[in-house]
């Protein structure tokens, strides 16, 4: 490859070189007549050349290297300029640049294209492909057409947009894979590993994640005000909120693909919550935006005397942004009876999450925290508390996702997972975060009084799961087939019917960290599922009457490296055990499971009938040249014969809820063409 590339010099040297000492070293003892000895000469790091092969070797160790080292001279972390053109924020805040650091990969190439993302700048209106940003090995940067630099002056070019959206997504993925979050490489829900990103898909107020095409698609639309400049086209790919929200759908679909098939409105709402949570957490993490909010509000954030008022002001500042609007609300579950709109329903959970954020910050203000604190006893300002809480939310809100059942998630499931995750990461919990979380979810009525009573009962951290046939963890985690044998041997104990075939939905090993970046015990996560047939019998199922659908059942078992069960969340079916093996005193458990499964089944039928009556189920109308946007119903029925499956449709956004209201009037006709 020729001479190794010279690394860039940086302006500053290390503190040790500047001051002669580093923080922990004792000063050298002076002697009476000899000047203090100096640190021995060594080669300046600016003279060190790194060959491409050496760089690849370092890359293979990247996760073990400190961030500052990875950042050093763009060795393994490269700076990219991103541009926020947020249509939902006040004009003065709408446009901002931000520099983000993205991990270098050996295979970075034109697009941009990296291991997990491929930017394809295709426009469906013009039928043309925009030239891609080109990876320039020499400058270690993407360049535009004819090698043009993609600095701030190029912000109006599509190549800049391509790099901007790619860099945002790379950072967002890293946020989820970080040990403070899920602590593992996360998959996508489709066959393949590269999420296609279309930054300028065509004209429209839309953005969505689509599993079928393995893509995130971002549309653009004209100026929304008559007085706007013609150049004020709004590109959704430049809105961090929109990009992060849609990415949240892709992440959740990747880690829980079977959620897509749930007709439970809370599962669709959970998807919306995930999108909003992603937008919220990544916004809170962004220094530039945080600083801008504080400055533009006339220092109200700095002057806020309480965290609550700070949080409220932040909430007000983002209120115009639909993906963050849900954060500031008082909605409870009782406000949402018979609510079928996933957006509205998700408000309860997003609001609860914001409550958690504020409560975390308040605890930090009151007690301090020893998360790498230099002066733990000094009174914390609201802004410091807010920032701490924002960072803490990464593990409080994201780590529990791994505990969720593989099929259908309710808000209560998530709340239980959050509480359990808190227990696992902080068993002694001197700050009573566990109690705080229970209270937040209780106040929102996500937990009932009974739930609260059970959760507050003293219990051991680990309870032995009563299993008939023990398998070593090493065996279980070896492969899905091996994990299946473990599950099959223990059907009765795990409440899986004897005569029902089931599959291992996922099996993986996560290395998470918690406070002070301390490692948590490994989590080996095993998800399994099966389908129970459900007949749609009766006129309330409309055109689906007489057909058969399935209710997904299953569970998620989480082990630590010693084979202790850290968590078991499951969704039972309505069928009894049915096996011939002698029962092992599980009659009560099975009775409860069957009762719960029957209730799930009845609820499924009620919900489906309601969806059908409301005209929310249709088929996608499309062509080789694309889908009809106005004809994308909230749920899609698939399958021509006797069997039918209902899936959540691509999450189209930015359009109004008028279509849903219309559907209620004209039923399924809403999704048919009027000729």
């Amino acid at each position: 490859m020729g001479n190794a590339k010279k690394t860039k010099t940086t302006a500053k040297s290390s503190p040790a070189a500047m001051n002669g000492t580093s923080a922990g070293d004792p000063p050298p003892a002076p002697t009476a007549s000899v000047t203090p000895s100096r640190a021995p000469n060594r080669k300046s790091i600016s003279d060190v050349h790194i060959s491409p092969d050496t760089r690849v070797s370092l890359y293979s160790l990247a996760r073990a290297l400190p961030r500052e080292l990875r950042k050093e001279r763009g060795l393994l972390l490269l700076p990219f300029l991103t541009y926020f053109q947020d249509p939902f924020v006040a004009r003065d805040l709408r446009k901002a640049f931000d520099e983000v650091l993205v991990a270098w990969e050996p295979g970075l190439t034109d697009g941009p294209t990296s291991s997990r993302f491929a930017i394809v700048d295709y426009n469906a209106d013009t039928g043309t492909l925009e030239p891609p940003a080109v990876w320039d090995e020499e400058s270690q940067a993407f360049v535009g057409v004819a090698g043009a630099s993609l600095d701030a002056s190029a912000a109006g070019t599509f190549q800049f947009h391509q790099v901007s959206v790619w860099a945002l997504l790379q950072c967002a993925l890293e946020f989820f894979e970080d040990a403070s979050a899920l602590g593992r490489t996360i998959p996508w829900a489709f066959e393949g590993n590269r999420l296609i990103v279309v930054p300028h898909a065509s004209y429209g107020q839309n953005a969505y994640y689509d599993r079928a095409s393995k893509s995130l698609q971002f549309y653009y639309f004209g100026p929304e005000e008559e007085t706007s400049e013609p150049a004020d086209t709004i590109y959704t790919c430049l809105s961090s909120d929109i990009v992060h929200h849609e990415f949240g759908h892709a992440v959740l679909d990747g880690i829980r693909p079977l959620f897509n098939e749930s007709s439970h409105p809370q599962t669709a709402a959970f998807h919306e919550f995930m999108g909003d949570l992603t937008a919220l957490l990544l916004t809170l993490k962004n220094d530039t935006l945080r600083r801008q909010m504080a400055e533009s509000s006339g220092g109200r954030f700095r002057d806020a005397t309480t965290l609550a008022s700070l949080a409220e002001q932040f909430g007000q500042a983002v209120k115009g942004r639909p993906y963050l609007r849900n954060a500031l609300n008082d909605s409870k579950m009782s406000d949402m009876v018979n609510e079928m709109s996933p957006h509205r329903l998700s408000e309860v959970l997003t609001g609860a999450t914001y409550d958690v954020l504020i409560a975390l910050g308040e605890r930090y203000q009151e007690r301090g925290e020893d998360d790498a604190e230099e002066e733990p006893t000094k009174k914390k300002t609201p802004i410091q508390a807010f920032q701490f809480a924002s960072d803490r939310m990464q593990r409080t809100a994201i780590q529990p996702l791994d505990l969720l059942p593989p099929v259908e998630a309710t808000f209560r499931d998530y709340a239980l997972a959050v509480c359990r995750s808190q227990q696992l990461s902080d068993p002694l919990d001197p700050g009573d975060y566990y109690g705080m979380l229970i209270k937040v979810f209780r106040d929102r009525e996500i937990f009932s009084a009974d739930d609260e009573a059970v959760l507050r009962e003293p219990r051991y951290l680990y309870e032995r799961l009563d299993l008939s046939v023990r398998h070593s963890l090493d065996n279980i985690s070896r492969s899905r087939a091996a994990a299946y044998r473990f599950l099959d041997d223990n059907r009765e104990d795990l409440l899986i019917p004897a005569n029902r075939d089931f599959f291992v939905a996922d099996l993986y090993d996560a290395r998470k960290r918690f406070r002070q970046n301390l490692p948590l015990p490994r989590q080996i996560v095993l998800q399994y599922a099966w389908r129970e047939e459900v007949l749609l019998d009766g006129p309330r199922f409309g055109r689906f009457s007489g057909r058969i659908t399935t209710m997904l059942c299953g569970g998620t078992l989480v082990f630590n490296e010693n084979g202790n069960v850290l968590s078991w969340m499951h969704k039972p079916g309505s069928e009894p055990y049915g096996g011939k093996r002698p029962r092992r005193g599980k009659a009560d458990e099975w009775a409860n499971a069957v009762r719960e499964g029957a209730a799930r089944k009845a609820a499924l039928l009620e919900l489906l009938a309601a969806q059908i009556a409301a005209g929310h189920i249709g088929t996608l109308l499309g062509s080789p040249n694309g889908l009809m946007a106005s004809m994308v119903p909230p749920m899609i029925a698939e399958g021509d014969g006797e069997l039918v499956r209902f899936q959540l449709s691509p999450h189209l956004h930015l359009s109004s809820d008028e279509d849903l209201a219309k559907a209620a009037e004209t039923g399924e006709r809403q999704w048919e063409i009027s000729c």
Partner: protein
Amino acid sequence: MGNQLLIRAYNVGCGDCIYVRIPGPNGGFHILIDCGKKGSDELLEKAVKHLEGELPPGSAPDKKRLDLIVATHRHEDHIKGFDPRWFENIEVKNIWLSVAMDPKHPQAKGVNGLHDFAAKAMRGLMASGQALSPEVELLASMYGVSNDAADRLLMETLPKNNGIQPRYVHSGMKHGLDLPPDTEIHILAPEKDVDHFYLGEELDASLKGLQGLTASLAPAGAATAAAAPAQPANISATDFRVLQSRMLSNGLAFAAKESSIQNNLSVVLLIEWKKRRLLFVGDAEWEGEFKEGKHNGSWNVMWEKHRTTHLKEPVDFLKVGHHGSINATPPPAETRPKTALPDGIYAVLDTILPVPTGDAKPTAQAVVSTEREFYNPIPECKRLVDLARRVSNTSSYGERLKQKDIDPTSIWTTTKAKKNKFFEKFEKDFLDQPQPMRTDLEFVIEGRDFLDVEIPPRGN
């Protein structure tokens, strides 16, 4: 002729061909409202030939006189039959077209622009040669070149052959016709400001924005939509094809919207004769409630404009809209959601076709010109059964089919009908309930090529 007004709905499958004969001097006044159908032309030619035999003599020898042709809107199931060859023995005195069809109408620029855009996109799709789903093919077929030809026949050839100019009509216009005594014709729709009422600012801005940005973004000399774009280097050809098929198509979206808007540009006539009120609604639709400045259904606009005048009282006859589609007849009041206005669209049907109270029987009449052939849910039998409570000329078709020994499962037997279970899903549960007279089932049972509704003068 007698002293009764005749309304004759020819059986033309899924289409309209409605003849109205108003008694009066000089052989009366003869109107043809629409002449079209989807699919083959045979039934249309047959209908026109039959009609010719019913008309009074014209001024020239061997010619017959037709006083007025009304083409409610430009869809082929309403205009395909206006073939000048079939009308060569008929002297047409007046031709009325929707004002939206006037290419020069300044207040229809948006709608016409939308039509042109949709036509271009759909023709590109058809020309691409790719396989299309039946629904998309049906939509695309509405923008075929043959539709332009049908437009021209109606707007140019037929008028020219008759030495007249077409008249582009709108609500509130004076008809200027020489009508028989005690006869009046009110044009209730479309409104003259077509873009304002039926397109709306949002859709208009959306289309303008789309066209403007597309023009600025398409490189000079770029490939047309029909040609295949270059293949991206970083994804496979298969992935790219799937991606293209899963992106949002503005062409399809606007074509679907345009198709609905065209229905809402239908000429709606209220004919008053001897104190009888007869409503012909073309394919007018309703959509939620009226919204100022936004895209509206025609029924919503008519209710907004005429509820205290022409629509404040019941009618004696309704030509059921859009072949019995669910959204072409205003919804019954009992289906009103709690959030809907009590005096909005849910009040229309009870006003114009009230359900009689007590032991009274309905006196109004209706006819449905339809065939379940192209669209699964058209006609919407639930809607027809509700209409049957409000009109007198109804029939329980299940019973009549039994009397004639006709197995109802033998009626809908095309591949599409079997696949989509036309009988089981859309007809079976309603055959034994009264429905207004339907051209399709009257043809099957009695072999009727047309349905007649006779309206006596009020007071008889």
